[in-house]
């Protein structure tokens, strides 16, 4: 079994490297900014969903409040930049650290909760964050923050027309989140999480430090999501509370992982690769009608996929292995 496992992990790493290489070359062929835009969003959501997956998929603590960390990342970066002139690169790091700390601070009381109580607590805490930022004058309140445009600059991580730097950053973020997940899967934490998810009480009695392993998952997950948030802020160059901390982000981070396969290494990537282009295309195609057709199409697809493939799309590929176990 160990041999098998090691082989699978090596194979995963090689596939990932190959995919990343292919992705890195796409801008050579794809010059259309609209397609590039979709690619960037896809990579970003893949990365976000991958990070969300660490806490919610692997550790089993379903959070629908990750928009809080996304927004904190965006706001920390831009507040530091516009108010104190701190370069976004440092702001990004700061945002990640702030989010990780807050995630751990919240984890302390939150991880006592189970099931729906936990899910609702995560929704509610993100909603509180949203309301506070909405009313925080110094942080721009509802007006949001417009990032001053000073022309192309790697230092300030802003580019007027070219999207390539954003593309490569999103790719890097996605790879980082994937790699962290890959690495954690086989670490002490990874084993603990699986134990915690399967049966928390048993895990504890076996000497797994349930609480600390959850804290670790929350911190890593929040850090990565915050980096994503700060990237998003630089990319869009305007943030307001609703557009970086709204509930829809919590869902959009969870959806790719759920559709692709929650708690799996490849689920979020696969889910994002299908979901995000689909969202954009339905809007292009039906969005101008004003009759909600895009919503109907989008919603129906979510219902169908969740019903037909509860383990996510990934289960289509691994059928020979898993069928015996599940049915």
């Amino acid at each position: 079994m160990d041999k098998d496992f090691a082989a699978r992990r090596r194979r995963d790493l090689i596939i990932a490297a190959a995919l990343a290489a292919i992705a890195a070359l796409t801008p050579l062929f794809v010059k259309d900014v609209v397609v590039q835009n979709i690619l960037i969003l896809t990579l970003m959501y893949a990365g976000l969903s991958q990070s969300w997956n660490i806490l919610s998929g692997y550790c089993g603590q379903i959070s629908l409040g990750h928009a809080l960390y996304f927004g904190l990342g965006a706001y920390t970066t831009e507040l530091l930049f516009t108010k104190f002139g701190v370069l976004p690169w440092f702001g990004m790091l700061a945002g990640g650290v702030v989010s990780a700390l807050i995630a751990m601070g919240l984890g302390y009381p939150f991880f006592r909760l189970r099931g729906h109580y936990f899910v609702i607590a995560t929704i509610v805490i993100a909603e509180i964050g949203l309301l506070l930022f909405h009313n925080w004058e110094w942080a721009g309140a509802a007006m949001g923050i417009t990032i001053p445009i000073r022309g192309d600059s790697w230092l300030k991580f802003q580019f007027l027309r070219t999207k390539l730097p954003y593309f490569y950053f999103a790719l890097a973020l996605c790879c980082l989140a994937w790699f962290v997940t890959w690495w954690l899967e086989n670490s002490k934490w990874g084993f603990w999480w699986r134990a915690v998810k399967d049966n928390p009480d048993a895990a504890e009695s076996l000497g797994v430090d349930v609480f600390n392993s959850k804290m670790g998952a929350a911190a890593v997950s929040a850090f990565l999501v915050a980096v994503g948030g700060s990237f998003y802020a630089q990319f869009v160059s305007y943030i307001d509370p609703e557009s970086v901390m709204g509930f829809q982000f919590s869902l959009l981070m969870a959806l790719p992982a759920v559709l692709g396969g929650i708690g799996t290494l490849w689920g979020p990537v696969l889910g994002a690769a299908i979901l995000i282009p689909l969202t954009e295309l339905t809007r292009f195609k039906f969005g101008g009608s004003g009759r909600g057709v895009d919503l109907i199409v989008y919603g129906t697809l979510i219902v169908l996929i969740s019903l037909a493939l509860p383990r996510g799309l990934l289960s289509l590929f691994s059928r020979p292995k898993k069928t015996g176990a599940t049915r």
Partner: protein
Amino acid sequence: MGLLYGLIAVGLALIFGLMDVTNFAHGEFLMIAMYLSFFLFAFFAIDPLLSAPLVAAALFIFGAVIYLLIVRFAMRAKANAGMVQIFTTFGLAIVMRGLAQYFFTPDYRSIPQSWLGGKTISIAGIFLPEPQLVGALVSIAAFAALYFFIHRTDFGRALEATREDPGAVALVGIDKNRVFAFGWGLGAALVGLAGAIMASFFYIYPDVGASFALIAYVTVALGGFGSVFGAFAGGIIVGLVEATTALVLPPALKSVGIYAVYLLVVFIRPRGLFGSI
């Protein structure tokens, strides 16, 4: 207002709380009920108060059908059951909003004149708006009925037993799907009641459910899953907290008070005030 939140939450308390099925489309059920009662008014001039039983009956069928067509399959999922339920019902909510926009147009609608709308009873300087008053009465009645229903009838016991151990129930010869379809129907009917009363004083548009849904979830969780009385108490607390927060904090932050109270309660009692699950 608290009892009105309670009324919206009571249907959810049944579906979410007693059957342990996550329903993210609850707000959209409310929206459908409001539209229904609007159209009954617009085309047949039936006052929302009169049409409430009709709307409730229609929603009963709607809820049962949704269960049989969709939710049944979501519950069957062996893996990630929680997530499948969340996202199936979430997708359903999006579809329902889209359909509402398609058929009813996104126009804001509202029932201009109704028996309840805009009338107020003033007792010793305290104004009690009639819709809220009737809402409160209906809400108390609905809770009492549900409480009686769950704890005193065979069906109520069957429902609870089915949630706890579907396998064992099947052995006794109870059809799980029939029990749950009835439960969903009942839950939806209660939302229907809430929707009809809401329609007499609230505006109606495809996204209207969203503003109420989160408060309804919080209300149910605050009271504790599995407890009808809990949802009732939750509703009252939410109403009171909202009113008092608005006095202390800027009104834009009044929901923060509700959320904070929820967090506080579950930190002290991780299963809500009266929860059993």
